[in-house]
């Protein structure tokens, strides 16, 4: 898998990290390199990286109450005209689509500091689907590549 050497890159990248923030930076680096290797436009790469960061951060911070180690799996699929991001974790059931939208018209003093990440993702992804199967949260997001 080396785009730089002129060989075609794999169209699927699967990454697994432990539920700690140290793994997140490495995950984002790998995802960024994968998207750049496929020549993704900067705007699309930004959206996918943002979704990955927001969702994995949420799972690490709020997904587990037992203090144990868990594995979070992220899969990127280069499938023109779209990029697909799949996430799976065994944290507490959480459907990001069901989270209430933040009140963006609230004055500064009343503006909540949470909930923004999910709002950004819902606005930037073309499609988002959630299901809970086999004790795991499974999320699939589609991002459209510019023609």
């Amino acid at each position: 898998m080396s785009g730089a050497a002129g060989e075609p890159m794999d169209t699927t990248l699967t990454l697994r990290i432990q539920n700690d923030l140290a793994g997140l930076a490495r995950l984002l680096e790998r995802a960024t390199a994968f998207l750049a290797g496929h020549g993704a436009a900067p705007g699309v790469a930004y959206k996918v990286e943002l979704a990955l960061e927001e969702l994995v951060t949420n799972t690490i911070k709020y997904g587990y109450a037992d203090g144990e180690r868990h594995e979070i799996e992220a899969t990127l699929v280069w499938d023109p005209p779209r990029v697909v991001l799949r996430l799976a974790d065994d944290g507490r059931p959480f459907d990001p689509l069901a989270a209430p939208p933040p009140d963006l018209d609230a004055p500064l003093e009343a503006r909540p500091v949470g909930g923004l990440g999910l709002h950004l993702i819902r606005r930037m992804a073309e499609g988002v689907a959630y299901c809970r199967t086999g004790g795991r949260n499974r999320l699939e997001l589609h991002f459209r590549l510019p023609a």
Partner: protein
Amino acid sequence: MKIDVIERDAVRLVRLDGRLDAATAAEVERRLGEVLESGATRIALDCAALEYISSAGLRVLLSATKRLRQAQGTLVLGGPPPAVLEILEIAGFTGLLQVLGTAEEAVAACAR
């Protein structure tokens, strides 16, 4: 993330170079906190070299804006690239704080 603080016409110009994400938000928050604690009330953020911002970064900007508002101060952003500007718009931040085309315009707006 590289953070530089420069004094310009009684305005503190804070230059953010890199990614403002979950990994760097704490460092930016600490540096902005130092600027605020020094008594500065006019802060311009040079965002021209800000490649990326996520909700972790938005939270830092929001809390700095709240603190400054309490001190009758101003925070103005200048020069965010299109992708960063789009995030600020989707998050509703362009209605909360002033976002201008360049850092120089942000400094000038703060100095008024």
